[in-house]
């Protein structure tokens, strides 16, 4: 440290003259600058904090990226073996299409200079970044792109086992380019540039119960409605029938992976390595475990069986529920929010099933419904007190998400249906999309149960009806030899 030398020079030098005093004063005044100049690589504390923010944000982004694997596993595990390649592939592709689209278009629409709080207008193709200048926009993009991909991937589960591969690629583009980013700019645009209109109203959605999950959930709802239920999902009387998932260990692994991913999703939304993340971690975890318990108690009471698949949804419900309020509620509130989300998801899954919307993995309930719940909960359980005003804003935000997403997604799927086609042929659906779309089997070395002999409805008047085949055939579709 050359400070000693400097002061040795100043102090014993002469009597305390005005000059000396000024020197001393100046020295100390400039000390922070001197120190940081002395050590350009011995960064200042502020620099190190900035670095820590980068490190934390990017590690969190990596964790959120991992959620793609989690979604892929959950969706694959909760559907049938004959469609496993297809679902894995869709989960891979929505991330790839989404990343490129968000890079080219979405990020600019979401975080560019805002046009009156309604849409971003700059920063396409990451043009905001200039080499050699501050790269924060890159760290921020990395974190945001994995969020965009999360919203996009939610839909694949709800439309699983019947959607054309190309149709899904087109949808992935639309949600990543338009649906997600524009809504996102309303609530989060201010994180980088000017604030969106929802932000200006004081809308709280810390990590995206609405922005990410509800948007994904309502797009899933639109998709599931437009494409219709899987063959055999409803019997002749329109009663839902269970179509069990083919690999529950993988689905469970998927939930564990999503859970750890959420430790990036929520605490990472600080985009800063600060003490708040402790709070957010604890809230996130407590809501998740309470969600499991809430859903387990519910389904156990309802059906007298502790159902793993439903309890997995409970974990995700708790996590979605705490996503908006994770930074503004107490741990005890987090337990309550998660627990109620766990109950909610069970009733919602059953209700969605009954009204004829076939969502194989429960995406609509987990992300759409519990996303709304979490958004409202941010007002209801606010640690600084409840206010009707805040609740109103929260409700407005949640409604806006629905009103923006559902019609647009519905339209998107309708247009896809009328053009390239949304659904595979009946024969392909029966045979499985893996062979039909990809010419590959997920498990070619295993003897698979075919014809669903272990899962068939006894005494249904006409099995063909029961499998929904006849009606489709009646429409003149030709069943290839199976």
């Amino acid at each position, binding site marked *: 440290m050359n400070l000693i030398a400097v002061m040795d020079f100043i102090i014993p030098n002469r009597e305390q003259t005005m000059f000396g005093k000024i020197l001393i004063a100046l020295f100390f005044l400039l000390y922070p600058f001197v120190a940081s100049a002395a050590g350009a690589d011995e960064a200042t504390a502020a620099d190190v904090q900035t670095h820590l923010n980068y490190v934390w944000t990017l590690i969190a982004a990596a964790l959120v990226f991992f959620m793609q694997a989690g979604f892929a596993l959950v969706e694959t595990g909760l559907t049938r073996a004959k469609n496993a390649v297809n679902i894995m592939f869709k989960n891979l592709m929505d991330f790839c299409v989404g990343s490129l689209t968000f890079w080219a278009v979405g990020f600019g629409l979401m975080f560019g200079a805002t046009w009156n709080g309604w849409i971003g207008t700059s920063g396409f193709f990451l043009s905001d970044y200039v080499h050699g200048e501050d790269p924060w926009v890159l760290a921020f993009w990395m974190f945001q792109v994995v969020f965009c991909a999360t919203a996009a991937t939610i839909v694949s589960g709800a439309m699983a086992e019947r959607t054309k591969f190309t149709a899904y690629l087109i949808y992935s583009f639309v949600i990543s380019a338009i649906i997600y980013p524009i809504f996102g700019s309303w609530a989060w645009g201010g994180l980088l540039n000017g604030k969106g209109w929802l932000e200006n109203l004081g809308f709280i959605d810390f990590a995206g119960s609405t922005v990410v999950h509800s948007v994904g959930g309502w797009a899933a709802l639109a998709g599931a409605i437009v494409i219709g239920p899987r063959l055999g999902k409803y019997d002749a009387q329109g009663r839902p029938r269970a179509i069990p998932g083919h690999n529950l260990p993988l689905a469970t692994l998927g939930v564990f992976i999503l859970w750890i991913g959420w430790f990036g999703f929520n605490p990472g939304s600080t985009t800063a390595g600060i003490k708040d993340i402790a709070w957010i971690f604890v809230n996130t975890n407590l809501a998740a475990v309470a969600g499991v318990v809430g859903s387990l108690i519910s389904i156990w009471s309802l059906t007298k069986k502790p159902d793993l698949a439903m309890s997995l949804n409970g974990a995700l419900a708790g996590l979605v529920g705490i996503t908006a309020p994770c930074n503004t509620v107490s741990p005890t509130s987090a337990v309550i929010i998660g627990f109620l989300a766990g109950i909610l998801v069970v009733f919602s899954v059953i209700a969605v099933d009954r009204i004829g919307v076939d969502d194989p993995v429960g995406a609509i309930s987990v992300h759409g419904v519990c996303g709304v719940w979490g958004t409202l909960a941010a007002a209801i359980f606010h640690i600084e007190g409840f206010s009707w005003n805040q609740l109103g804003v929260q409700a407005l935000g949640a409604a806006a998400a629905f009103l923006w997403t559902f019609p647009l997604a519905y339209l998107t799927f309708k247009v896809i249906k009328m053009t390239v086609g949304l659904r595979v042929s009946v024969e392909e659906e029966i045979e499985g999309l893996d062979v039909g779309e990809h010419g*590959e089997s997920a498990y070619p070395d295993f*003897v698979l149960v075919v*014809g669903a002999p272990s899962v068939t409805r006894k005494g249904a008047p006409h*099995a063909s009806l029961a499998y929904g085949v006849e009606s489709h055939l009646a429409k003149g579709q030709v*069943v*290839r030899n*199976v």
Partner: protein
Amino acid sequence: MVKVEAIVKPFKLAEVQEALLGCGIQGMTVAEVKGFGRQKGHVELYRGAEYHVDFVPKLHITVVIAEEMLSQVLEAIRSAAYTGKIGDGKIFVSPIADAVRIRTAESGLSAL
């Protein structure tokens, strides 16, 4: 007594089952098998290389019945499993000398 073995397309199981129940059949046994026949398999490409899938998944349904039910059962299976496309499958009929119900030691027709 005769044994009726039907090789059918997998997705026809439920219908065949219904049809057999309609004939008054009380039991049947089903196995997953692979069939080779006029219905050819297909050529697949995996990582750019070809492979030929000669065998297609079929179900093998076995039901042992009294001989007098034979024509009724044959017709029931036939019409339930029918799609008119190649590969609908076959029904084979063969003699059964005896049957035993393990639980009761009954034998003959009453064992079915």
